[in-house]
């Protein structure tokens, strides 16, 4: 295998970790929102943490091997789709971080309620379904999807 093939394999593996880990986190979050008891919500939101190292490896790997490939493949500094992907990469991470903090607030409240009778309250329900907090995670997902589109489409190359 050539250097480019190795880099492509590692870059795509990182992309699988990034996107797959995010999908797994989204599934766990959706299940947590639909759970009946606060203890169940808290437990499912705790499991979201398991996906974070996987997403982290993906986030770092896509950037490192992506920039390396950019150099190896001589795409040049005028490849606007790579710059756009880098901007989207930053946006996806920033929005994902904000969405994650919102999930952490929900988890803490769910844990408090779990130890105090394990009955859901309007406050928890409102926090779990908060459109602003959830929008951050969905927008992070959309930004990631847009990166995938640019990477496959490669407009102008």
């Amino acid at each position: 295998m050539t250097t480019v093939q190795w880099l492509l394999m590692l870059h795509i593996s990182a992309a699988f970790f990034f996107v797959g880990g995010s999908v797994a986190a989204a599934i766990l979050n959706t299940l947590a929102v639909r759970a009946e008891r606060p203890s169940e919500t808290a437990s499912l939101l705790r499991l979201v943490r398991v996906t974070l190292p996987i997403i982290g490896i993906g986030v770092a790997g896509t950037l490192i091997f992506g920039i390396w490939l950019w150099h190896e493949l001589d795409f040049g500094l005028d490849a606007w789709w790579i710059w756009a992907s880098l901007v989207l990469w930053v946006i996806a991470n920033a929005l994902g971080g904000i969405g994650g903090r919102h999930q952490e607030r929900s988890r803490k409240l769910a844990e408090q309620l779990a130890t105090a009778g394990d009955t859901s309250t309007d406050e928890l329900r409102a926090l779990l379904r908060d459109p602003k907090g959830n929008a951050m995670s969905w927008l992070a997902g959309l930004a990631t999807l847009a990166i995938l589109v640019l990477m496959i489409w490669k407009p102008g190359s």
Partner: protein
Amino acid sequence: MVLAYSRPFWPLFLHVLGAMTLFGAILAAVILSGAAWRAPDRAYLRKATFWALVSGIPAYIVLRVGAQWIYSNEGFSGKDDPTWIGIGFAVSDAGLLLLLASIGCAYWWQRSGRPLAGRIVAGLSCLYLALLAVAWLAMSGKWG
């Protein structure tokens, strides 16, 4: 994420998106089944495992349709196909059986709570996750 050169956009996009989403669904199932195995009293984790696996079905369909679309576009015939295509199809076909068997066992586990069903679900999900990793490594590295 530089994924490919000179291939039509839609088939490859659907194939890759389906594969990544399927990986995420199976990863969620592995995490949930592991947690449910350690805490057998928590029935909701068994139910969540079942639904995580079920969410892999649409992703599998998108992956498979995209794969067949690319295969037809590029004029492969099944004769002397590269090794990486063979690996991809083998994992795809065996994967469907694994996915359906996992869903069936997860349903049995959800209804009965029997530890054996949980072990089978966790084992099959881990095996499928590993096979998916082999497939993407083979296809992205163009093995053979």
